[in-house]
């Protein structure tokens, strides 16, 4: 037992007491990916702008200047104004709050439900797995818009903020289905790894194995899928708002702003172009970040391409 030990001792002289986790490794690889870093930086910028909106514009989001209706972009209104003379930049910044919040919260909801459900189904296997996944299949078969529209109709006279929470839950409840399928697939492959066996013979119970051994090892694909879920949810929210079932006026989201602007696309194109641009830039950034994360978390995949 000399060779191994000597190596150990020699390395110990440099005093590297702390180890690098696989997460840190992935983070380093992510920082090397320019597109992903640019996407991430842009997202942070957009999020900051949305959060700091009151400090960035002199207007309130529902401040009406009827005399400036459909004002083109100018010094007063950098991105123009809508038909009621509300500053478009202000509305885009405030709308970003709603769009981003819906995207992030709904994705978060879907991760929590989907990952625990999928990991439990995959690990338990057999009949439990069969019943749980058939339930997911059935839910897949239901048109989700029907579900969300139903919720919106039932609670149609709830206050606006409450409806926003409903939107979070409704969209999250739809997205968790795919998340649970991805998680289940990952769990099936992780389940056969020797370290799961080792955990069992170390005396770990089912709950401990799922939470400490299975879930940490499948978070990679989940994170990647989550960054792709955020734009999907944002688009769905835009679609719902477009139908008049999402955010209610005078509140705005990028989707509802674009839908309002569509009506006057011929005459006042900026009313549609700018909200659409904000949505597009955000979605692009998220996708680049997602791609970068996938490569960073699973470097072997990248080499195989």
């Amino acid at each position, binding site marked *: *037992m000399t060779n*191994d030990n000597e190596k150990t001792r020699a390395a110990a002289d440099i005093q590297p007491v702390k*180890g690098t986790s696989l997460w840190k490794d992935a983070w380093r690889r992510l920082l090397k990916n320019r597109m992903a870093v640019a996407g991430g930086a842009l997202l942070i910028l957009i999020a900051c702008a949305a959060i700091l909106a009151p400090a960035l514009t002199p207007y309130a989001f529902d401040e009406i200047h009827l005399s400036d209706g459909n004002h083109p972009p100018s010094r007063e209104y950098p991105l123009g104004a809508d038909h009621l003379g509300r500053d478009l930049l202000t509305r885009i910044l405030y709308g970003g709050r709603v769009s981003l919040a819906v995207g992030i919260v709904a994705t978060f909801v879907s991760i929590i439900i989907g990952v625990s459900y999928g990991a439990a189904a995959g690990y338990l296997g057999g009949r439990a797995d069969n019943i749980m996944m058939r339930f997911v299949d059935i839910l897949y078969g239901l048109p989700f818009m029907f579900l969300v529209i139903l919720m919106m109709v039932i609670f149609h006279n709830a206050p606006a903020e409450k409806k926003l929470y409903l939107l979070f839950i409704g969209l999250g409840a739809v997205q968790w289905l795919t998340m649970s399928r991805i998680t289940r697939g990952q769990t099936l492959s992780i389940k056969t790894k*020797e*370290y799961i066996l*080792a955990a*069992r*013979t170390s005396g*770990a119970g089912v709950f401990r194995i799922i939470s400490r051994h299975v879930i940490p*090892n499948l978070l990679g694909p989940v994170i990647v899928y989550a960054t792709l879920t955020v734009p999907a949810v944002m688009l769905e929210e835009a679609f719902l708002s477009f139908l008049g079932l999402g955010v209610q006026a005078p509140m705005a989201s990028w989707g509802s702003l674009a839908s309002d602007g569509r009506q006057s696309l011929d005459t006042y194109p900026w009313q549609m172009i700018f909200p659409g641009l904000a949505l597009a830039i955000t979605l692009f950034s998220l996708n680049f970040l997602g791609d970068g994360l996938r490569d960073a978390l699973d470097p072997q995949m990248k080499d195989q391409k």
Partner: protein
Amino acid sequence: MSVSPLLSLRDVKVHFPIRTGFIRRRITGFIRAVNGVSFDIEKGETLGLVGESGCGKTTAAKAILGLEKTAAGEITFDGKNIAGLRGENLRMIYKDLQVIYQDPYASLNPRMTVLQIVTEPLACFNVMNARERQARAEELLETVGLDPRYIRRYPHEFSGGQRQRIGIARALALNPSLIICDEPVSALDVSIRAQIINLLEDLQNKYHFSYLFIAHDLSVVRHISNRVAVMYLGKIVEIADSKDIYASPAHPYTKALLSAIPIPDPEVEAKRRRIILTGDVPGPDSEIPGCAFASRCPVKIDRCEKESPALREIAPGHSASCFLA
């Protein structure tokens, strides 16, 4: 030796059903992975279990650990019957029964630090508080020859041999009375194997636990085992004290295995006569009326095809299942 052995297997069978049919999957046969295995392990003893790939040695180990259902037979550990235990009852046996796995690259959770891996059994059985566990982990790392300062590192930062040491430290954490080593060195470089085997031996001398040492290679087992059992197609064909089995193998399969070990002396090696086995291993799903080894046996007689030889004692402490032994 003591009155009752630490671990005792009596006619243990593990059968895997073969299902055919597309919609109604009927059971049409069985793979007899372990087909009537009996052996004892005394306290402080090492039993080597040797056999080629697919002979059922790992399945036998899994049956002991309750990870595979036994179809028949009795497994007694520490005076209690542990065959067929499930859930919490099964979990409790791991306090005394630990495993060292074959592949040190697959058996350590890559998201956990060495500290978390080594103290996992302690945490599962709620032994000690966090500070005591860390002290125990540092002590264990030192015991297996690793620098305790590496406690916050992750498995991927270690070499294969070092990882296997981490796996050994985990198995030691609860002070078990029996450790099952499932081919603990076959995934390692030849240069590291001797180190790990010596370490395992030193640990046994220090803590007096028993080993069930599984390997597919007689030369690996020779050094560490008190007794050796040779398995072929789900059955034990020969079991004897270590020195007896190497000096006077009785079963033709054991002889063939022994003749395959190279001798580190060119002159002797040149004269070494190898017994090359021909013929095929019968599929484990087929029922064999006679001796399972008959299809490959160089000294087969007519009787071998019709009758299955029982494992019988041919010398004190030396049993073999061959008519000619």
